[in-house]
């Protein structure tokens, strides 16, 4: 990449403030043709705002943007699109009820004599996806495909508009490894065509796997632009968080060498499952233990969590739950029952299953506790405030005060508030489903440290993460799932990435349970 060459896109001195927040201050960014440029930074560093300024969602208070050397000032996403700046967001924002082809060409259907030319539409959609190595039925409704495919469709849409600049805002957070690889192939193909790609992600591996250049943001300012070979991981993380980075090795289970916990079992299930959802399985969780659920996306991790929590009803199996106070012998028939017994569940999809967006942080935090107390015995406002403030402090939730709507916080802070919701109920067991998805490195570390500290005090945790490395790091034992059944279990020193991968891959080395 020749840095003398004129950049396709240049943002210089961009500032943008919102009431009470300085989101961007003198930020700058350069994108060259045919490069993959990673934008790194913690949540709240200003990445999203920078992208929103670039795509015309927000107008900058100061600064200038140049595309091919010419000053631009898009005032809407549509205007940006017409300039050749296309964006694919973290949450797929297409129309789930339309076909794949319709989604790709929405708003610019090929027409013949005033009528939509459906044949051409489908043919062009097939071609477009074919170039990305994807062969699917383009006339099928979009939501019949997994999120990964939908993501590819969104990219195909962006690419088909002949964009010179493509922004990918955390496109990989819901993809598994194969799908990520597929996405990378597409990105390399586009790079070959001379498209400038701005890639936002939280996964360091991916940054180093594909980036030509990295821009790091912190506190709304651009920390600097680097070549990946000149910036090792430690250095990158330090620049992102603005302080020396404590390697994640520190956040390990208490024991020196993962000795199997000899504590009493808190929860054990036998032949537990639901027809069509999860094959019957046995599982045991001891007090003060972190049990990881390993497996690929769609292997049944979330399904297992929901069954245990009573969100979906198990139709077979026995359960033994006992923390000395509560006892239960049959599967929980509702989340309510599970919560009464001392369980908590941080769901995978914060937005739809977790937060009550328009309610305040305080109300969100006390919700589960209040639900357990019943509607009649309201927690006095003063006590609510005390609880909320306590957890805002304890977990470092960054919010002006606990009365702010939770929907306005960043993802990491929402996740911390979800954690607070369950900690406030003083649970015996927590199910954490992807607790660190879409969260920056520092917040991730903070959350995991909090969780492990609680474990040391006797809390049991069922831990689910797509990040195998993370699962290995925090779990005492790992149960491995494949195709909606449990295919193995690792304990103590056996817990390592390779071993889990082997079981997932179907090697019979481990005893199958």
């Amino acid at each position: 990449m020749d840095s003398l060459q004129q950049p396709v896109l240049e943002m210089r001195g961009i500032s943008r403030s919102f009431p009470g927040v300085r989101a961007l201050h003198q930020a700058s960014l350069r994108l060259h043709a045919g490069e993959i440029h990673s934008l790194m930074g913690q949540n709240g560093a200003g990445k999203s705002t920078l992208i929103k300024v670039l795509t015309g969602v927000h107008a900058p208070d100061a600064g200038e943007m140049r595309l091919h050397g010419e000053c631009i000032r898009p005032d809407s996403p549509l205007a940006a699109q017409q300039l050749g700046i296309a964006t694919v967001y973290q949450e797929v924002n297409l129309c789930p009820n339309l076909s794949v082809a319709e989604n790709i060409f929405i708003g610019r259907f090929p027409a013949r004599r005033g009528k939509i030319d459906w044949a051409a539409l489908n043919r062009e959609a097939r071609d477009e996806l074919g170039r990305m190595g994807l062969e699917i039925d383009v006339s099928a409704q979009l939501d019949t495909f997994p999120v990964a495919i939908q993501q590819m469709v969104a990219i195909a849409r962006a690419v088909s508009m002949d964009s010179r600049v493509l922004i990918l805002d955390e496109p990989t957070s819901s993809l598994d490894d194969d799908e990520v690889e597929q996405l990378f192939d597409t990105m390399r193909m586009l790079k070959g065509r001379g498209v400038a790609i701005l890639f936002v992600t939280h996964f360091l591996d991916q940054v180093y796997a594909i980036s030509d250049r990295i821009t790091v943001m912190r506190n709304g300012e651009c920390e600097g632009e680097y070549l990946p070979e000149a910036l090792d991981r430690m250095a990158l993380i330090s620049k992102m968080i603005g302080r020396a980075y404590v390697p994640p090795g520190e956040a390990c289970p208490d024991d020196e060498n993962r000795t199997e916990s000899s504590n009493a079992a808190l929860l054990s299930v036998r032949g537990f499952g639901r027809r069509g959802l999860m094959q019957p399985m046995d599982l045991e969780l001891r007090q003060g233990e972190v049990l990881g659920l390993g497996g690929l996306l769609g292997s049944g991790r979330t399904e297992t969590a929901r069954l245990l929590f009573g969100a979906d009803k198990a139709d077979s199996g026995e359960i033994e739950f006992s923390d000395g106070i509560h006892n239960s012998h049959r599967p929980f028939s509702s989340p309510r029952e599970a919560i009464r017994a001392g369980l908590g569940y941080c769901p995978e999809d914060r937005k739809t299953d977790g937060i009550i967006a328009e309610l305040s942080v305080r109300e969100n935090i006390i919700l589960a506790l209040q639900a357990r107390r019943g509607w009649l015995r309201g927690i006095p406002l003063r006590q609510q405030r005390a609880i909320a403030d306590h957890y805002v402090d304890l977990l470092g939730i960054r919010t002006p005060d606990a009365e702010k709507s939770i929907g306005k916080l960043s993802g990491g802070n929402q996740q911390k508030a979800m954690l607070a919701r369950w900690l406030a109920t003083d649970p015996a067991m927590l199910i954490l489903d992807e607790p660190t998805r879409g969260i920056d490195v520092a917040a991730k570390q903070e959350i995991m440290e909090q969780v492990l500290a609680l474990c040391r005090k006797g809390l049991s945790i069922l831990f689910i993460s797509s990040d195998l490395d993370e699962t290995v790091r925090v779990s005492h034992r790992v149960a491995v799932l494949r195709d909606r059944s449990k295919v193995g279990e690792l304990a103590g020193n056996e817990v390592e990435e390779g071993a889990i991968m082997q079981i997932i891959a179907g090697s019979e080395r481990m005893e199958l349970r």
Partner: protein
Amino acid sequence: MTKAFRLIEDARRHPLVWPLLTLVVIVLVNVFAHPGFGPQGFLHVGVREGHLFGALVDIANRAAPLMLVSLGMTLVIAVRGIDISVGAVVAISAAVAATLIGGTLVIENGAPVYVSKVPMALALLAAVGAAALCGMWNGALVAGLSMQPIIATLILMVAGRGVAQLLTDGQIITVYYPPFFFLGSGFLFGLPFSLYVVAFVLAVLLCLTRFTALQLFIQSVGINPVASRLAGLNARALTFWVYTFCGVCAGIAGLIISSNVKSADGNNAGLLLELDAILAVTLGGTSLAGGRYSLWGSVIGALIIQTLTYTIYSIGVPPEVNLVVKAIVVFAVCLMQSSAFRVMVFRRGSLTGAEV
């Protein structure tokens, strides 16, 4: 200076500002049309036969049934529902009460005495009970069978009038039992009794809001039912009881209405009341999308509608166009309350309202 500005700014953002402003404007129109505190003035409040009377008292009294129904409707709307059967429930409740009370004149020891068929307390209880059953039916359909609220309550909206006519044999039943009239046209300590009923229901709701977690639960279920269930709320039970409560409110409103007109008309009692109630809730600032709600707002909304109706008659709008006038005013109010419209017109708020 800045403090005063801040105060104004806070007030401008208070959710009750627009409803209150609307009410004040409509009242002002009346004041201009009939100025002064004299007997002809709109603001005149006099004392007659030991109780207050005047346009304001009259409006409040007539708004009582609508306020009650709106309170119930507010909670239903807050849990993402809607209840279009309240008008029919009013008719059922009125029919039950009127049929059970009836009333005949008998001469007892040489003095004429009115006697009810069934003790009045029992009749009132039966009427409210019937209304509660109606609410439970709606609740069961919506919460139990997950029917679309508008369809579920449409069933009772249509069937309810039939039930009411069945009860009254298709006749308009006239009540001859003066104690019953107290409910809708009696006075207590100088004020219409119906207002005490409204005050009581409102007070109960406000107390529940203050001391229990009801408001939190209702809003939570209204905003995100899925997440609420995962947080341990029993969304179904809550929804069921909210519809039941709405039925009870409509039932009490039915009693007041039938008491006021001393009869029960299965066909016309509470006709189109559901639409007025939905309108009152909306005018009060509660979003039809569910979630955050305002009880005071709905009360004010009901007063706006009643004052508007009064105004149209009192300033002499010809009867054949009064619905059009009403619609235009409502349209204007809704327009003013729409933030998108305000941004369009005033070109402000677009920057300050942006989210980070």
